[in-house]
């Protein structure tokens, strides 16, 4: 977050500077990239995560940089192997959830009529069935819950919420003037969906995808805590489950309990930061408006704005950020 943009060297930056889009993106990408690299190469560089041939519960030290578990597994090796598992679960579940929510949300919201009713019915039924028993039923039919199965269960139960949000948004968009205009102009439905609706939903979609990934990784951890995680695989969730079951905290083995949770939190945070930055790229208002507001506030403080009111809180909205909010313009930029 300390990355300082260099595009406007003439402005002295205040001490508490808001992280710029670039800083957020760079930090987010760096952390996610590092995690992915750790997942790919970590297991090659560490010892066998399933080898109990170590002293038990040793604190971090050379050779066991993150200590060992109560069975003598090397925590660092488990963390690397767990990164693979957790990332796999997150991405697979995220993709599945977003595809399903597109089908059930956007199509329903746009199509309306019988299609809407049908799809919404499915969405609503899925929404009200508590996820827990569904997962139990499904997983109890499967003798072995692999990573993939858990990912699919998570993805298949995670979409209805997103679908509802997307449907409402799509429905609202459909009734906007420019969409009506395009429809009157005779554009086909798929084209309308692809050219008018989807681009405007992109921020929401992207947000929902990254959100679904984070949520699935968290969900996998939660399932594992409740004893429904993938069996036979190592993920950060199963590590936490074992640490908890083994009384890691009460036995003072923080090096066993803390790292997996922290990895989940940091990865989730990084994805949210990317999400943040992507939001701003897709919807420049999110970036330009704050920047403009800040510039104006600064200018006013410097005495350049004679109309500034007494209270900063009541600052009027700044002049439109460089361009008119023209939907067509917006669309083109997104496609560019």
């Amino acid at each position, binding site marked *: 977050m300390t990355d300082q943009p260099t595009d406007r060297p003439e402005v002295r930056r205040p001490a508490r500077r808001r992280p710029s889009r670039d800083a957020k993106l760079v930090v987010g990408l760096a952390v996610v990239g590092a995690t992915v690299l750790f997942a790919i190469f970590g297991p090659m560089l560490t010892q066998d995560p399933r*080898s109990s041939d170590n002293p038990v519960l040793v604190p971090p030290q050379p050779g066991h940089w993150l200590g060992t578990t109560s069975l003598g597994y090397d925590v660092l090796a488990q963390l690397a192997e767990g990164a693979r598992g957790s990332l796999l679960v997150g991405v697979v579940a995220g993709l599945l959830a977003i595809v399903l929510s597109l089908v059930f949300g956007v199509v329903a919201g746009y199509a309306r009529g019988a299609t809407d009713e049908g799809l919404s019915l499915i969405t609503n039924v899925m929404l009200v069935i508590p996820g827990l028993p569904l997962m139990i039923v499904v997983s109890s039919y499967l003798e072995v819950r692999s990573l993939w199965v858990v990912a699919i269960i998570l993805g298949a139960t995670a979409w209805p919420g997103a679908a509802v949000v997307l449907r409402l948004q799509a429905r609202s968009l459909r009734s906007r003037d420019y969409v009506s205009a395009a429809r009157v102009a005779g554009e086909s439905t798929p084209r309308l969906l692809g050219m008018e609706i989807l681009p405007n939903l992109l921020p929401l979609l992207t947000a929902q995808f990254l959100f679904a990934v984070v949520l699935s990784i968290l969900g996998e951890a*939660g399932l594992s805590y*409740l004893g*429904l995680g993938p069996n036979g695989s190592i993920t950060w969730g199963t590590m936490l489950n074992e640490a908890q079951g083994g009384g890691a905290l*009460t036995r003072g083995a923080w090096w066993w309990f803390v790292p997996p949770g922290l990895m989940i939190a940091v990865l989730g945070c990084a994805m949210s930061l990317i999400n943040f930055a992507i939001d701003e790229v897709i919807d420049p208002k999110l970036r330009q408006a704050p920047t403009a507001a800040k510039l104006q506030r600064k200018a006013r403080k410097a005495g350049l704005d004679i109309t500034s009111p007494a209270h900063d809180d009541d600052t009027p909205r700044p002049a439109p950020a460089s361009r008119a909010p023209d939907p067509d313009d917006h669309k083109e930029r997104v496609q560019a």
Partner: protein
Amino acid sequence: MHGPTRRRRWLRATALAATVTLLAAACGGGTAEAPEDGAAPSAAGGDTDRELVIWAGSQTPITANFNPFNAAGVLHLANGGIYETLFAYNKAADTEPVPLLGTDFAWSEDGTELTVTLRDGVEWNDGEPFTTDDVVYSFLNEASKPAYLADAVATDDSAVLLSFDEPQFTNEFALLGATYMVPEHVFSQHEDAEDAEAELSGIVAWPNAESPVGTGPYLVETTSDAAYTAVANPGYWGGEPAVKNLRYVGIDSNQSAEDLLATGQVDWATMFVPEPERIEAAGYGYLNTPVDPTVLYTCANADLGCEGDQTDVAVRQALSVAIDRGQIAEKAFVGLTADISPTFALLGRDDKWIADGMPAAIEQSADADQAGQILEDAGYEKDADGFYGKDGEPIELTLTSVDGWSDYNNAAKLIEEQAAAAGIKVIASTVSWNEFADSRTGGEFQLVMGGVIGTSSADPYQIYRDWFSGDYTTPVGTALEPGFWNFSRYANDEVDAAVKVAAGTDDESVKADAYATVQEHIVHDVPYIPLVVNATQTFYNSTDYTGWPTEEDLYLFPPAWQGPTSGVILGNLTGTE
């Protein structure tokens, strides 16, 4: 985030345990000498008003139910604290049964009649006298009458005769130590209790939630979702207990219970704690009384439909030899377990029953070479990957354990590693409780990490009959009947015959000979691969109370959840101030 919680370890050690009892092995029969006056409070300390907080394994919400015939719902206090048995048996040591409502008992020569002498002057806590009618009722009512009991009649004002069609030496514990005495004048009012919703009827449907009438040392005071309290029974036949107030709380996880112990908020609990020193440091007394074996169930009998490589005795023997029990005890069970005997006699308590020539404790370290030798002698060969197999098919065994039982899960992982080192491929996986229950009772498994019930008195008979005899199993695909525990489907005519001989005698040498036959076969055939005798850890507040069972004076099995002994222990406690 929606899912059931991990299977908590304490559940298996505690839930409902006080309510369940075993048809115990006979302990030699004959006449037990009744100590003078039963379990009167010891004189070491004085009365105390300090509330004794007990966690016996209840979870919240607690539902008030003090009906000892309702095994599924009865609260721990009812068994021992309110209702008492005729005698209390000691699962932890080879001691004489403690007389409670009975003072003496005698078997007839042939084991078909059992005469019990009752304690005089006992009153129910509603003021009515305790009579032979109550005893007869307690044995013969619909909910409690065992199939083997032919009749129960009062022979005079203070003795009851139980009669059977066949010798029942081996059911002494079930009759005397596990059948709770209830007041006929109260319970007979509720025989028509009915619950249309649950489609229940009869005594079991009656919750007995309001002021239960018993003979025990305590009276129920209040009940709520989270806890129930009791006060000392001033009219208790053994004298009013010195500890005046009890509080049983519901706690939902092992971790919470351990935290509450560490912060001194619970006075008596029996649960697994990996580092008991931490609780001891908080000022608690600590007693570890391992009694229940932990084993690998193997589905051993191909004749009854078992499938998999473990049906070959050589594979079972080799696997048993390949296991490093010392490492498992140390790493998975945190060094709290006791060594197990391959004869399933409890070392220390049952030593006299281990036949000459039988090993006492099983070998603790692994011997991969010997395991390989056993397999090679049986025609197996090592393949390119280093795993033994026959005809190009490597041995592959799936070992399941219940997800979340972390000691079992860990032991299974270690066994997978150890077996691989000896060239045997074992795949450890975890299953839900439901799958575990289904697979073992139906016989559809290869290896399952599981427990064997330790016997309730100093005699391994119960294990030999219920777990090893062919009469106590069913073909694969057919669920075991209630009371059958032979999950391995093991069936051996010589074992069955020897078990029958042991059942019909109270002659120790005849029984020992029969046991020698049983042991010879089960040690060779290993239908259950013995691992350890699992820990039973009890923590108690020894700062404010005395009179607990201790290492030196292990007068009863100490767990807070065990009935009726927990009631006897409570009556025995005094305050230190």
